[in-house]
């Protein structure tokens, strides 16, 4: 590959079974068509033949990429991880997750666009990647250490390196384990920490002294200046939703006034949306919006009064390498509901107490000590696999029978992933046709189009449908919703492939039409960094192509069919789980939903009877090879 700008040009291919490390040119995987991140990962998986193996099989590749923008100043330092996921339910699907921190930039500076890891090491190992050299090292002394201990140990051996680890949860193959770098830069959804664990891979460390060469530095500088002049680029000291606990003013004030050290965030990003807190006796670490939800385990009416519990839950789970999003969902909805429905007892979970639910009527709520004991027992139980939830909410519920499963389904609309921001039909359609929760794009709906018709009109999608939500005035809108979902899905693919972080790439950011909107911003960044001439239409075509490749993988490997594109039954019923904090204004109407799906398939160029891509759309996206392979498998259209 002669590409000098944007891409590093090489992919590191590591076979842990035979300890073989090779380099493959990135150009083998059409980076100009598939960019990086999710697109590149998907292309690699496709070319590997979409192995039909279990998540913990050595042949399940763990693929990790940065993207052409990574290494540049901006919210671009993200790694996208793709692999067959232990967490998705009922099937282990090939899906994705992502994380920030500095890792992605270091990998780029070290000379690589991606790392592909296959096989299984015969003993605990870690991979080091430094300036074009990679090595498999012994990690016998690291196995069993928590995520922070592991990083501290490796920092001594690899100064300045970025370190990605799996914690005890991943070592014990918990399906809700994370890959984590720094304090909380985690690939959360998917259970990929356990894929590392299954490969005996404790960590990946990387450092590089290379640079990102920028094709048009003056253009890129001008672009940064432009957004800076708009007041959007620097000095964003308003990221309150991330930096402070938001669930009660009491908690926010107590944390801010007593324990806030500073703000932090991902490398190269001007937004720095995390708060760093140091609570003596509990620990030091960062927090983002979801991390403070451990308050919920204190009970609704006590939120904010147990900040020690809040902070302990956050720090401990990150050290153990557990998925906060899943845990919070579990504690908030599932635990309580189970208790109220008397389906399960604490003994079923092997816990001595569940103060959050058992002590709800008591004034002390079990108190700080009880909460501490609960978290210790609960979280460590997950980390060592002794707690049934270690397998994730859905598989845990399955074990406890149909009633528990029904409850879990009402919390998890699809794929065993917890409900969040599913407040319009567009989001529902996105969920139904994805391979995991589309959480990292659902803010496009909720925070941009849903509440701002002007922005929605600008992008020619439906909008403003959340107006009057608090008064119960908004309705399910089916008409034209397929356009909205398709827009966000294509954008999601670009986000995960350029990459650009979700929050600063919401359509409501950089919104100064006609000179600047998020599509223009992304296409101009890509053009300036890579030197390719990418206008908005070309950019969107790439997003569409990546979505189609993801669909082709689902069809080929997982036999995906339109019948699979659905949500749990509760989404179609009058009574949606009362504990879900956010929901559709009304149950989905089967007839309208089915008609919407048909329009969506038509718009996508997919077969309306099967939900599978047709040759015409694939060829129009320069994906004849994909069409041929699907046809060969009898799964085209």
């Amino acid at each position, binding site marked *: 590959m002669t590409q000098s700008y944007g891409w590093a040009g090489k992919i590191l291919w590591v076979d842990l079974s035979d300890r073989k490390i090779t380099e493959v040119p990135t150009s083998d995987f059409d980076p100009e068509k598939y960019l990086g991140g999710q697109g590149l990962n998907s292309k690699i998986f496709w070319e590997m033949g979409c192995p039909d193996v279990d998540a913990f099989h050595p042949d399940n590749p763990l693929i990790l990429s940065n993207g052409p923008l990574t290494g540049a100043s901006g919210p671009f330092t993200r790694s996208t991880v793709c692999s067959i996921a232990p967490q998705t339910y009922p099937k282990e699907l090939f899906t994705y997750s992502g994380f920030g921190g*500095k890792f992605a930039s270091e990998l780029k500076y070290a000379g690589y666009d991606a790392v592909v890891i296959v096989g299984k090491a015969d003993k605990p190992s870690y991979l080091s990647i430094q300036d074009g050299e990679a090595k498999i090292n012994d990690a016998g002394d690291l196995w069993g250490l928590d995520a922070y201990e592991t990083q501290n140990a490796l920092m001594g051996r690899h100064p300045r390196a970025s370190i990605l680890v799996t914690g005890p949860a991943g070592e014990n193959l918990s399906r809700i384990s994370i890959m984590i770098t720094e304090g909380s830069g985690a690939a959360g959804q998917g259970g990929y920490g356990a894929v590392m664990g299954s490969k005996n891979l404790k960590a990946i460390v990387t450092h590089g002294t290379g640079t990102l060469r920028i094709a048009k530095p003056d253009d890129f500088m001008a672009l940064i200046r432009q957004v800076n002049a708009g007041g959007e680029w620097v000095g964003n000291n308003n990221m309150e939703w991330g930096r402070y606990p938001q669930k009660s003013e009491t908690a926010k004030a107590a944390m801010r006034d007593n324990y806030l050290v500073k703000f932090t965030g991902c490398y190269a990003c001007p937004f720095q949306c995390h708060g760093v807190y140091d609570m003596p006796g509990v620990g030091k670490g960062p927090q983002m919006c979801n991390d403070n939800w451990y308050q919920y385990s204190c009970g609704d009416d006590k939120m904010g009064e147990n900040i020690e519990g809040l902070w302990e839950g956050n720090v401990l789970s990150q050290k153990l390498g557990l998925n906060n999003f899943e845990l919070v969902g579990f504690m908030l909805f599932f635990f309580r509901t189970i208790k109220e429905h008397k389906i399960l007892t604490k003994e079923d979970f092997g816990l001595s107490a569940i103060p959050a639910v058992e002590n709800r009527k008591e004034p002390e709520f079990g108190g700080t000590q009880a909460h501490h004991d609960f978290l210790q027992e609960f979280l460590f139980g997950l980390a060592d696999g002794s707690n049934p939830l270690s397998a994730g909410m859905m598989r845990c519920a399955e074990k406890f029978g149909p009633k528990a499963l029904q409850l879990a389904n009402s919390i998890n609309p699809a794929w065993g992933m917890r409900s969040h921001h599913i407040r319009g039909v567009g989001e529902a359609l996105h969920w139904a046709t994805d391979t995991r929760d589309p959480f990292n794009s659902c803010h496009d709906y909720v925070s941009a189009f849903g509440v701002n018709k002007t922005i929605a009109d600008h992008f020619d999608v439906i909008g403003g449908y959340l107006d009057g939500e608090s008064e119960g005035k908004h309705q399910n809108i089916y008409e034209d919703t397929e356009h909205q979902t398709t827009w966000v899905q294509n954008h999601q693919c670009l986000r995960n492939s350029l990459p650009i972080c979700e929050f600063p790439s919401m359509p409501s950011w950089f919104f100064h039409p006609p000179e600047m909107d998020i599509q223009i911003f992304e296409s101009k960044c890509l053009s300036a960094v890579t030197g390719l001439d990418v206008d908005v239409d070309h950019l969107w075509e790439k997003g569409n192509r990546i979505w189609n490749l993801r669909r082709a993988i689902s069809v080929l490997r997982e036999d995906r069919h339109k019948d699979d594109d659905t949500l749990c039954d509760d989404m179609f019923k009058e009574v949606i789980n009362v504990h879900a904090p956010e929901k559709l204004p009304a149950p989905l109407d089967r007839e309208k939903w089915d008609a919407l799906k048909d329009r969506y398939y038509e718009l996508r160029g997919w077969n309306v009877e099967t939900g599978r891509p047709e040759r015409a759309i694939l060829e129009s996206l320069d994906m004849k090879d994909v069409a041929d392979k699907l046809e060969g498998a009898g799964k085209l259209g």
Partner: protein
Amino acid sequence: MAENLTEKTAVSARIAHSDKSCTGCGLCDLMCSLYHEGEQGQSLSRGELVGDRLASEFTFNVCRQCAKPKCYDACPNQDKALCIDGSTGVKYIVADECDGCKDCIEACPFDPPRIKMHPEKETAFKCDLCRDRAEGPICIEYCGFESLSLATKGDK
């Protein structure tokens, strides 16, 4: 060296860093390398933000613009390669005049040295407070958290 310069070097400003509010975003390094080299990465930045990202503790290693610059004294091509700005006292390197002998790097009293070698050009480079930039140092301009500032002698 002209006599009057000695006095002026004593009042030269320098980049000062405070870890108190530093988030570790590294835009200082990235904007520096973009402005001066048209590339982005720490190795081509005149400064270098280092530290412990897990603990969120950072230091910015950058030229201190010494009042008695040993790098300047050590330069065999003094006043052509390593120079002192007559009006501001800023010590700067003229890449075209630098023969890459590294004497200035060895003379730098700080660890790590605050002068680096360009891997391709094989010339020395260091912070010159963006002396050719009307808006002043780009690292300070793009630091969103007031962690960088221009300090003069006497400031910490």
